[in-house]
């Protein structure tokens, strides 16, 4: 089995509201999978189904080759978007309680917890009440509790919302480490930079519909609009400051100059869009004759751009239906 999770044609309706419409995804083993979408898109519904808090009306979920059932609960770690702890309970007692509910024995839980607390340098919190801790401290505890039973599948719903930057970094580091140790990770987020940083694959959903799915690399390739940024210095020309390509219109066929500007160092920055399937080497060869190329890069769309673009497109479509 190459896919740790397979969601096949899952739908869920609340009254007249279709929360999920025929969603199918495949999450490869030992990868990080991002669920993206605006608020109310259906991400939390999908995550709750994986946690068996709700059941799909139609479709099925396959967990590690088996149909999802309650025996899988101890193999799933879940950090919900709405998260908290019992305020008046002691940190250690509470962590043991939550670990026990995931099937870890009291003794084993205490041993593992002490190791984690030690790792994070928070052993002296053990006998404190949760209400005595700051929010950032509570987040550390919540993270530990999520992973304490060594789950094979980790689900984080908006893990970075409400975390302070130090904890966000800690969390990112731990997520990558957990994947490298063999866990499969699903998380939903609005934080697009973290998607590019962490995710191997993503799905974009909106209003219960899947809009986009695939690896982050492939999606970026699919959405690029063949734009290049070239920086070069025109040698020999003393008046390089006023040299402009737009005056001479001399780019090779298939390339269109989008913009150009000269910075204070006398370097020229060009944005060029190219026809599809044209070899960018033609442009580079041409430009290298004009001056010294300092840098060259393809402009790939950010996940943020793709996200906004796709969601807005959906909105336009639904507008036209009205």
């Amino acid at each position, binding site marked *: 089995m190459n896919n740790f999770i397979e969601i096949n044609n899952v739908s869920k309706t609340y009254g007249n509201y279709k929360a999920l419409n025929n969603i199918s995804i495949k999450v490869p083993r030992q990868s990080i999978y991002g669920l993206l979408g605006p608020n109310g898109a259906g991400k939390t519904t999908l995550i709750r189904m994986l946690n068996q808090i709700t059941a799909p009306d139609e479709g099925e979920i396959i967990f590690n080759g088996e149909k999802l059932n309650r025996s899988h609960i101890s193999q799933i770690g879940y950090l919900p978007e709405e998260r908290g702890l019992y*305020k008046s309970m002691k940190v250690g007692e509470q962590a043991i309680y939550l670990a026990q509910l995931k099937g870890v024995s009291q003794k084993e839980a205490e041993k593992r917890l002490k190791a984690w607390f030690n790792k994070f340098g928070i052993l002296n919190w053990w006998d404190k009440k949760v209400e005595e801790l700051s929010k950032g401290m509570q987040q550390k505890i919540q993270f530990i509790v999520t992973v304490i039973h060594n789950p094979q599948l980790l689900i984080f719903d908006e893990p970075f919302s409400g975390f302070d930057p130090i904890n966000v970094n800690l969390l990112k580091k731990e997520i990558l480490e957990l994947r490298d140790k063999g866990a499969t990770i699903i998380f939903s987020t609005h934080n697009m930079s973290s998607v590019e940083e962490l995710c191997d694959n993503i799905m974009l959903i909106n209003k219960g519909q899947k809009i986009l799915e695939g690896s982050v690399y492939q999606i970026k390739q699919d959405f690029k609009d063949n734009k290049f940024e070239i920086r070069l210095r025109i040698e020999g020309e003393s008046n390089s400051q006023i040299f402009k390509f737009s005056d001479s219109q001399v780019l090779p066929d298939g390339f269109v100059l989008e913009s150009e500007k000269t910075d204070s160092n006398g370097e020229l920055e060009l944005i060029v869009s190219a026809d599809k399937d044209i070899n960018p080497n033609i442009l580079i060869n041409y430009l290298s004759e004009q001056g010294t190329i300092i840098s060259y890069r393809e402009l790939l769309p950010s996940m943020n751009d793709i996200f906004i673009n796709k969601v807005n497109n959906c909105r336009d479509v639904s507008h036209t239906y009205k």
Partner: protein
Amino acid sequence: MNNFSIILKREYLTRVKKRSFLIITFLGPLLFAALMITPSLLMLNSDKMESKKSIAVLDETNWFEGAIENTDANTFIYQDINENIDSLKKFVFEGIYDAILYIPATSLNVPVNAKLYSNKQIPMTLSSHIEREMKQVVEHKKLLASGIDPAVVKATKANINIATIRMDSESGEKTSYAELEYIIGFVLAFVIYFAVFLFSSQVMRGVIEEKTNRIIEVIISSVKPFELMMGKIVGIALVGLTQIVLWIVLTVAIYFVASGVILGPEIMSPSGTVMTEQIEQITEMSKGQDVMLEAVNMVQSINFSAILWSFLLYFVFGYLLYAALFAAIGGMVDNETDSNQFSTIVSIPLIIAIVCAPTMVNNPDTSLGIWLSMIPFTSPISMMLRVPFGVPYWQVAVSLVLLILTFILITWLAGKIYRTGILMYGKKPSFKEIWKWMRY
């Protein structure tokens, strides 16, 4: 350990270990014991504090000489009829007498206007004692004056005692004691009423706490909402039982220890007045053997095992029924303020049952009483009121079956409302939405 017992353990231990639980559990018995001990302590001390009083009696009618009985605290000293009241008053200030009882000359047909002079406040018991004694003397004299032998009057005094006997086709005839049944029924019904309210609302608060903490989603990703709900309900039931048992045990213990320490020496000392008084009481009681017999009959007439069993069953299922309802309410709302509307509606049957209680104990077999003790939402209280008076077995059976069936139905529905409600934040649901949740 399965999830249910892990939850149960937490719900129980976190509550029992709370400082407020410990304070209430230990302060309660102290208060109860104080309530029980204080009266006897006061009585003892008042006896000790009340110094002996000597009262001079100036009796111008000459009727009362020797007729007013001396008591432990009061001695009456009869003065010569020619003594001057004003000179006697001086003795009060000099401390020779504590008071003067002045009875001016009068005739039988005129009310006696006695006066009691003192420079200190006269105890109520003293003046009423004198009144009572004087009344007897005057009544006696009046009877004689109208030619009636007082002994005849005494002989005509009637003493009537109606024994109520309930006929039962199975166990034959049985004397019933309505007063005792009344008290037992009332006390047990009230215990159920308060315990159901107290502990069900704790269940609700527990559910709301988990919602406002936002820990709920973590927990129900590990256990079924129904397991969590039942673990909480049963855990809190055990907290309640622990508290009640501790209260009883501690109250009794504190009562005995405290009465040993505070009242003990008096009881132990052979010259102590309490001891002799008690012995007198006992000998007096043995004189009235029929009183004792009556008491034994009374106690034996009560079917304690039936009462105990029905109390346990109605207590447990009544609590479970309401706890499930309150758990559902807790699941629906975000904070306790929002819960008021729902919990008021849910508590109406309990309040109706307790409001009807006085009418019901006066006449337990009216149709009102029978209906209320059948309807599952009122039966834990209403049936408990009736059980000590004796209720046909089929009625108890039907009422219990109805209660248990309703409990199962309500728990099932409450579980559905709870399951959906605990994941809803931010707004109070409408009744329409709740209806929808029940059908998911």
